[in-house]
C-alpha cells in the first residue's frame, strides 16, 4: 500500500484535486478544514513525491498558490483505492 496515501489528510487532498484542473490553497483549506501549517506540510510531501504540482501566481495583485494533480498522483490514487477495496473485499470473504 502507498505509505504516502495512508494519511487521511493527504488522501483527501488528492480526492479534492481529482475533478479539478486546479484548486487554490484557500479553497483546499476550506474543504479539508485544517490549519495552514498542517495543510502546507502535507502538500509539501505530495509535491516532493511528484503527486501534486504547485503554481504561484497573482490575481488582482494578490499572491495565489494553486495545486493540480499529476498523472503520477492520479495513478497512485487509483491504485491505492483499488487496494483499499481489495482489502475490504478480502475481509468480507473471510467473514462469510
Amino acid at each position, binding site marked *: 500500500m502507498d505509505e504516502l496515501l495512508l494519511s487521511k489528510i493527504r488522501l483527501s487532498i488528492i*480526492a479534492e484535486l481529482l475533478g479539478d484542473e486546479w484548486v*487554490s490553497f484557500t479553497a483546499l483549506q476550506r474543504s479539508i478544514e485544517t490549519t495552514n501549517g498542517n495543510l502546507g506540510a502535507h502538500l509539501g510531501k505530495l509535491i516532493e513525491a511528484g503527486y501534486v504540482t504547485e503554481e504561484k501566481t497573482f490575481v488582482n495583485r494578490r499572491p495565489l498558490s494553486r495545486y493540480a494533480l499529476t498523472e503520477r498522483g492520479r495513478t497512485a490514487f487509483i491504485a491505492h483505492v483499488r487496494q483499499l477495496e481489495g482489502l475490504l473485499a478480502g475481509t468480507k470473504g473471510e467473514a462469510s
Partner: protein
Amino acid sequence: MNASDAQEHLEMVERIVAASSRKLEAGGEFFVLWGLISGTLDLLSQLASDGRVPPSAMWLGPVLVVAGIVGSTLFARRCRQDGRMSFLQREFITVLWLTLAMALAVNLIGGNIFAQWAQAAVWSVAASIVLFYIGAHGNRRAQVGGIMMLASIAFANFNLPVAGYALAAGMYLGYAGFGVTDMLARD
C-alpha cells in the same frame, strides 16, 4: 491498515468525490449580460428597420458589445478568485468563447452570405449551442432555454416582418432568462 480503517478512508474519498463532482456552474451573470445585449441589438435592428428609430441608433451596437466584453472579463476574473477551476468549467468556457468568436467572425466576414436577419440569427444559433452544451450536462433549465432560442428562430423564419422582435424575445427569455434562473438556483 485494518478493514475498518480501509472502509473509513474509502467512505471519506466517496464523500469528497461526490461533493466535488458538482453540476456545471454556468455563471448566470454572463448569460444575463449577453442575453440583454444581444436582445437589445435585435430589438434596435427591428426598430430601425421599421423606421421607428433613426439608423444612427445602431451605433449603440458597438458600445453594447464593448460593455459585454468588459463585463465578461470581470466575470472571468471573479471565477479565478473562487479558488477552483474544474475540468468541466474549463471545457464550458472554451465552448462558450469559441461559439461567440465564431458568431462574431461570421458576422464580420460573411455579410453577403448571411444577409438581413441571418446575422442576428447566427448569434441565436451560437447562444443555443452554448445552452444545449450546458443542458447536455444535466441542466434542464438550459435545455428549456435552448429550445426557446430555437423556437424564436423558427418563429422569426416564418414571420420575417417581426423577425427582430422574435429573435430579441429568444435572447431575453431563453438566454438572459436562463441566466436569471441560474443565479436564483445558486446555493
